[in-house]
């Protein structure tokens, strides 16, 4: 309906956005009738989201005109932002930002570089940036999950950790079960994603590719490729981040510092 009224893509986009906003406002109205008040938060979030998307879109337009090597910088910036975001979740862990950054760079960076080199990611910016950003987002999420889980496991098991230390075990030996738990916790959402790929998880990329005129079967297969990369990035990132945070949880004299109140 809208596409018949607006032929210019920009006008069409704005019209579609307007309809979406109306939908959100309708939800706010219904919630309000049930005395759930979402007005303020929804309005602010809608506005913020819209401005962000438009800004990113405009920057991408500028970027796509630039030389292709500049995508490396864009991806690096994304990794910095991702590290800052997930480090904020683990603020009380010393060096959380550095740990997150290394984890995400190794986890997502290796996957992006390798898959681009192999040709599974098109090195042109138009595909490298969006696919790369999904891989980085996956690293970010699994990093936050792994750090959070590791910290809470240590806190809950201070007695066992110190019993192990008191028996003369190394910190690394003592925290083996908690490293396992942290990495597994970070991977569960990714494993579920793989498992339910065809049914539940049809996110932006496939829809976008079909809309952009790709062959639906190819779009579906590529969806699988992306989810596979997301899985790999999650695994690498959570592993690296947990192993890095592991050594920061203990003092040089092999005393537990993270998680214990001492």
């Amino acid at each position, binding site marked *: 309906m809208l596409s018949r009224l607006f032929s210019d893509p920009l006008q069409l986009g704005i019209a579609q956005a307007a309809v979406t906003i109306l939908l959100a406002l309708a939800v706010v109205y219904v919630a309000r009738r049930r005395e759930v008040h979402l007005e303020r938060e929804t309005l602010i979030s809608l506005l913020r989201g819209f401005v962000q998307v438009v800004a990113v879109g405009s920057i991408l337009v500028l970027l796509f005109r630039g030389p292709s090597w500049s995508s490396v910088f864009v991806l690096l910036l994304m990794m910095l932002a991702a590290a800052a975001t997930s480090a904020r979740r683990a603020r009380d862990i010393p060096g959380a930002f550095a740990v997150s950054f290394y984890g995400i760079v190794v986890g997502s960076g290796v996957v992006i570089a390798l898959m681009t080199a192999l040709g599974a990611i098109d090195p042109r910016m138009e595909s490298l940036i969006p696919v790369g950003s999904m891989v980085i987002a996956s690293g970010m999420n699994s990093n936050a999950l792994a750090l959070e889980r590791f910290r809470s496991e240590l806190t809950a098991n201070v007695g066992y950790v110190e*019993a*192990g230390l008191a*028996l003369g075990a190394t910190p690394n030996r003592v925290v083996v079960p908690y490293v396992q738990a942290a990495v597994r916790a970070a991977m569960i959402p990714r494993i579920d994603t793989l498992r339910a790929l065809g049914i539940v998880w049809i996110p932006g990329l496939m829809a976008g590719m079909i809309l952009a005129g790709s062959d639906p079967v190819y779009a579906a297969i590529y969806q699988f490729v992306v989810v596979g990369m997301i899985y790999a990035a999650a695994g690498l990132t959570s592993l690296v981040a947990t192993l890095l945070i592991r050594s920061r949880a203990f*003092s040089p004299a092999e005393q537990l510092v993270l998680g214990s109140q*001492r």
Partner: protein
Amino acid sequence: MAGEAESREATWEGPVLRTEHLTRVVDDRPLVEDVSIAVELGEVVAMVGPSGGGKSSLLRLLNRLDEPTGGTVFLEGRDYREIAPRELRRRIGMLLQQPFLFPGTVAENLAFGPAARGELLATETIAELLERVGLGGYADRDVSRLSGGEAQRVSLARTLANGPEILLLDEPTSALDEAAQLGVERLICNIIRQQQLTCLIVTHDPEQAERMAQRAILMENGRVVESGPMSEIKNA
């Protein structure tokens, strides 16, 4: 086994364990303040005092689970910061109020300390250790199905499997009911005597202190306020 009395070098003549102005301050609050004590070989010393007096904090410092902010500890005359923490903790065993057994079997728990040093604890040694703590035949039991008293005995055997020279006990029986308490206490006494272990035991029970120790140290507000035979401390 490494912890037997006869295998120990008898060259050091002074106190086995000595602290010098040992202090730990956390957030401007002294948990342990200027503690200087000496414990002779084979001596059993009770640590008594009001709750929050710093007894547990002192024990943690001796095991170096916490770092002193001042002063130090000498193990057979050697500053303990020169000894690798792992080696130190093997030589100074610690038993806590709760057993904190690792999930798995009793045997796996006993083997944990030696395994951490890359040593294999022989099946016969495990059986012998369990015999000594009155749990013969328990090797393959799952630790999740032990009673509180049994678990604490396994914890003791696990510490002994490391062959410690000094034993730190932080209220080792206070989580147990009275019958189990006496059982574990007697067991510890026998083992200390047999192996000539030097021992520091924290207890809230003056009678237990009298039964087990030759001497007591009274701690209040992080400081040692008295030290001497139990009878003198009790009257203080």
